[in-house]
């Protein structure tokens, strides 16, 4: 007889190695989604026990208690209590502990026990504990806690064998004896009493050497040095950006030429007509223009996951806390904002680590101001067409200087906006506390990192396949219909809905120096900012669009004034039009209002910056 699916839930404090245990158990058989109604990532995986039982395991967000002080922690609590909507009550809860650091987990476990769910305590990273001379009387611990205890080394092959065997053994006698749930939120006194109880049990069952991790102390002496630490952080960021922009380039070009070749193939195979145009211009070049960013996304997540696994991310937050605090940002906002340089989408998703709602909202609102890589094609196109490649002061490349200036303008405006949000909207609000565990350093495990990158790449591709694809179809439709009359000599896009919208918008954009062609290009740019480049190529000559796109820089140099070009650069520092980012903001804030607010404020900033730039440039004679 086939036994029903066994439901496991992984619970543990942050840094307990929960995720590496999850990866060890399930490998790549993982499903990442969101819990309904909230923006907490739901990670479920599947495996089969040695005795052939099918198991589903959910990796719940890390927490120090069941009080639920953030959406993440509420999920963990509700899930364990069986109150999470649409979720099965777990048959068995695996409470995961870092064996080198049992205090906080044992306290959590004592609290978890009150829920009456069957439970196993998993002493993870047991090898590291043994190496440091920590010895645990596992049998006694199990007796004191009244919970089965098993050791595991998630990162080693076969390191979870005992856990699997115990799961089989327990699930066999998981009769219908639902435990009594006597959990309720603990008062401060109870919390303190539980911690004392935990400390008593630990002193009875665990012998700790007075030998702290010397490696961690040695690394921290440099990495957390007030000045040296910031230099190390700057170096790491430098390497990271170098990697994102330089190493990804060949791969991106490869992908781009792959999509071009596919487009050409479709062009050559299919008869001239709507289907051909839809596949080549709508589907392949549209989705392709987003998928070329996959190498950058993979590289940025490689760095983030490596630094996170190593234990550095919490240190970065420590170093940046006060510096960012001046602008009303939380130290933890540093990582999301950093990711936003690759793409605001992973950045906004990464704001989930900020537990205070208002801090998180501020970070989400300013993340799109970080110069994402989609702006780079626009910047490089305009810079190479209009800014001379000469040196200033003998050694600084002027084009590079302008590029740097655009990045700096993005960062500065983000800080100013954050400050204004704090000042005007959240005035009654004192900064949320910064309290964070700085875990001991650990060697990152390649397998765990590979799985992490794989799931994120999959999410990105799924999004490219759904949201972005449908946007692309819409935009292709706007740019293709109505069809030009027979014998028309102007580019087909001139007759389209996009052109009508563009021409209608043109008077509004005239004060910032944009002609109607730019207005039209801004519409497809909604799908992804860099598509505006291709769209400009299309507007200026849709026939032979590809060659034209390559020479687009030369075309622009003859058709635009310098003032218009600079105005366009200023516009793109803010450039509110990115449908995917707006869609993610809507999802992460759960509100159309905040999405509209983001769009509106960025639009106002873009318009104001362009207006200023254009008029100053004209006044200086660049019109």
């Amino acid at each position, binding site marked *: 007889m086939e036994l029903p699916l066994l439901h496991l839930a992984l619970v543990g404090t942050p840094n307990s190695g929960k995720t590496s245990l999850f990866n060890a158990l399930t490998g790549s058989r993982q499903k990442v989604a969101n819990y309904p109604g909230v923006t907490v990532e739901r990670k479920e995986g599947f495996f089969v026990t040695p005795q052939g039982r099918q198991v589903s395991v959910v990796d719940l967000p890390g927490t120090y208690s069941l009080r639920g002080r953030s959406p993440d922690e509420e999920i963990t609590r509700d899930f364990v209590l069986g109150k999470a909507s649409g979720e099965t009550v777990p048959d068995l809860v695996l409470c995961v502990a870092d064996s080198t*650091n049992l205090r*906080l987990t044992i306290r959590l476990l004592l609290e978890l026990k009150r829920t009456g769910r069957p439970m196993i305590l998993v002493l993870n990273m047991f090898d590291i504990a043994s190496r440091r001379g920590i010895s645990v009387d596992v049998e006694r611990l199990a007796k004191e806690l009244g919970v089965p205890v098993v050791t595991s080394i998630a990162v080693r092959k076969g390191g979870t064998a005992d856990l699997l065997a115990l799961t089989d053994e327990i699930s066999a006698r998981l009769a219908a004896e639902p435990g009594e749930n006597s959990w309720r939120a603990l008062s401060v006194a109870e919390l*303190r009493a539980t911690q*004392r109880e935990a400390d008593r049990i630990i002193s009875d069952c665990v012998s700790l050497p007075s030998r*702290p991790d010397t490696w961690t102390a040695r690394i921290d002496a440099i990495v957390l040095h007030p000045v040296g630490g910031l230099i190390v952080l700057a170096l790491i960021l430098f390497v990271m950006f170098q990697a994102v922009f330089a190493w990804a380039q060949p791969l991106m070009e490869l992908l781009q030429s792959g999509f071009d070749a596919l487009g050409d193939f479709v062009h050559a195979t299919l008869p001239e007509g709507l289907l051909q145009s839809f596949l080549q211009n709508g589907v392949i070049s549209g989705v392709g223009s987003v998928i070329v960013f996959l190498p950058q996304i993979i590289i940025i997540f490689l760095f983030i996951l490596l630094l996170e696994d190593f234990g550095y991310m919490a240190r970065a937050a420590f170093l940046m806390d006060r510096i960012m605090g001046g602008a009303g940002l939380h130290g933890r906002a540093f990582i999301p904002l950093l990711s936003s340089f690759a793409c605001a989408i992973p950045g906004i998703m990464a704001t989930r680590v900020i537990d205070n709602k208002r801090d998180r909202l501020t970070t989400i609102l300013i993340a799109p101001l970080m110069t994402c890589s989609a702006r780079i094609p626009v910047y490089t196109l305009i810079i190479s067409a209009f800014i001379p490649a000469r040196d200033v002061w003998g050694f600084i490349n002027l084009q590079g200087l302008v590029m740097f200036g655009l990045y700096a303008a993005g960062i500065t405006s983000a800080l100013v906006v954050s400050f204004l949000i704090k000042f005007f909207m959240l005035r009654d609000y004192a900064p949320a506390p*910064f309290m964070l*565990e700085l875990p001991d350093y650990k060697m990152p495990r390649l397998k765990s990192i590979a799985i992490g990158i794989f799931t994120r790449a999959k999410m990105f591709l799924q999004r490219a396949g759904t949201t972005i694809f449908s946007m692309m179809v819409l935009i292709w439709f706007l740019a293709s219909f109505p069809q030009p009359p027979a014998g028309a000599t102007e580019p087909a896009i001139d007759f389209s809905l996009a052109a009508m919208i563009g021409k209608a918008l043109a008077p509004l954009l005239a004060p910032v120096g944009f002609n109607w062609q730019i207005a039209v290009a801004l519409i497809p740019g909604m799908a992804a900012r860099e598509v505006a480049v291709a769209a400009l190529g299309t507007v200026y000559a849709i026939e032979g669009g590809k060659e034209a796109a390559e020479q687009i820089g030369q075309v622009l140099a003859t058709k635009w004034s310098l003032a218009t070009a600079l105005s366009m650069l200023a516009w793109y520092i803010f450039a509110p039009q990115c449908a995917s980012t707006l869609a993610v903001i809507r999802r992460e804030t759960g509100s159309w209002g905040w999405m509209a607010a983001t769009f509106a404020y960025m639009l106002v900033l873009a318009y104001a910056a362009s207006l200023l730039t254009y008029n100053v440039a004209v006044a200086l004679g660049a019109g």
Partner: protein
Amino acid sequence: MTDTHDTRREMPLGLAKRGYTGVIQHLSAKDASSALSDIELESRLIELGFVEGARVEVLHEGLVGRDPIAVRVDNITIAVRRREAMAIIVA
């Protein structure tokens, strides 16, 4: 000054310099001008291991205003702002 080995003067951890070592005497959330309510602050501090009797050592300080601080609490390291550390009375 009665600052001897046996009876050290009580002080908030939020005022401690780098290298300070001591033992937590009690928590006094009302002494910290934290954004959190007293109960919430006290709960969070306990959840991170700041309980009476725990040994603490200030390991690192931030650059701006020597804030935040990295504190060794028994065998883990916690980063906390001085504002919140004012609630932790040590000696």
